[in-house]
């Protein structure tokens, strides 16, 4: 895997791009390459991370403007080819706005911007993004968002449950998300969107390593 390269997308307003790159390069020895949002050439990356932040200032809605960038337009073919895409926080919002994942993310129930560590139940093994063995696993990851309340209609929720697309659920729902949803995958499992930040939990000195597995799983085929 020594040539495996993860593209880290940079939008105007992204602010977790360097964190993601640090976690992948520094903690996991996985090569990264920053991809400016106006680029549509994804030929030399093997997986993509849409990092957190406030793309385009979150104008209109979180992720609504980013969706129209050349890079997101090029993402459709990348996803269809089975390559892996991880959307973290604002990246998750972009993935729902652009239709790669169902549902939407909107204002937290209590209106607070919440910075906290949260406990999460790993629900599905789809896509191999989380380390869940036979027993029910719980991980702790940081969250930092004002608009992380996952919402979808009841038919979509049923589809998520029936097809095992719910990846993570909050143990103590901090933002009012439907069904305590913190992260979901697409049906194929190669696209994961989640509000918590795995890249901020990759070193014991900053509070934990529960995020390592998810970032490492970017190299899965």
């Amino acid at each position, binding site marked *: 895997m020594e040539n495996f390269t993860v593209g880290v997308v940079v939008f105007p307003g992204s602010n977790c791009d360097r964190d993601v790159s640090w976690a992948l390069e520094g903690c996991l020895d996985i090569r990264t390459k920053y991809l400016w949002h106006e680029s549509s050439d994804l030929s030399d990356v093997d997986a993509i991370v849409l990092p957190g932040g406030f793309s385009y200032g979150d104008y209109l809605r979180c992720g*609504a403007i980013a969706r129209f960038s050349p890079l997101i337009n090029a993402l459709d073919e990348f996803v269809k080819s089975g390559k892996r895409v991880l959307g973290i926080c604002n990246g998750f919002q972009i993935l729902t706005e652009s239709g790669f994942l169902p549902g*939407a993310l909107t*204002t937290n129930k209590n*209106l607070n911007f919440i910075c906290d560590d949260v406990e999460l139940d790993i629900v599905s093994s789809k896509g191999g993004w989380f380390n869940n063995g036979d027993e029910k696993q719980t991980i702790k990851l940081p969250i930092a968002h004002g608009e992380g309340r996952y*919402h979808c209609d009841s038919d979509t929720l049923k589809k998520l449950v029936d097809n095992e697309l719910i990846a993570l659920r909050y143990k103590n729902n901090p933002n*009012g998300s439907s069904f305590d949803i913190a992260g979901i995958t697409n049906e194929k499992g190669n696209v994961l969107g989640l509000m918590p930040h795995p890249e901020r939990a990759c070193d014991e000195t900053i509070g934990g390593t529960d995020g390592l597995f998810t970032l490492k799983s970017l190299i899965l085929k």
Partner: protein
Amino acid sequence: MDQFAVKVFVRLRPSVLDPAGEATKSASIKLGAEGIKSLRIGKMIEVKIEGNGEDEVRGKIDLLCDRLFANTVIEDYEYSLEKL
């Protein structure tokens, strides 16, 4: 070419909780306003647009509303259109 002034209203769907609306309702009651049963906050977008007649312009606005101005998973939209 005709020019139109369009006002688009984007609202959270009735089934979607509006925490900002709830907070504003609470402040309205603290201000002493009585009788408020519901208060929900939306967005209004003003667009000036050219096109060959109202039908063509409505087509463009429908596309904008459906694909950009509103996220129809959580929001509804409506608009009024005035020929300038």
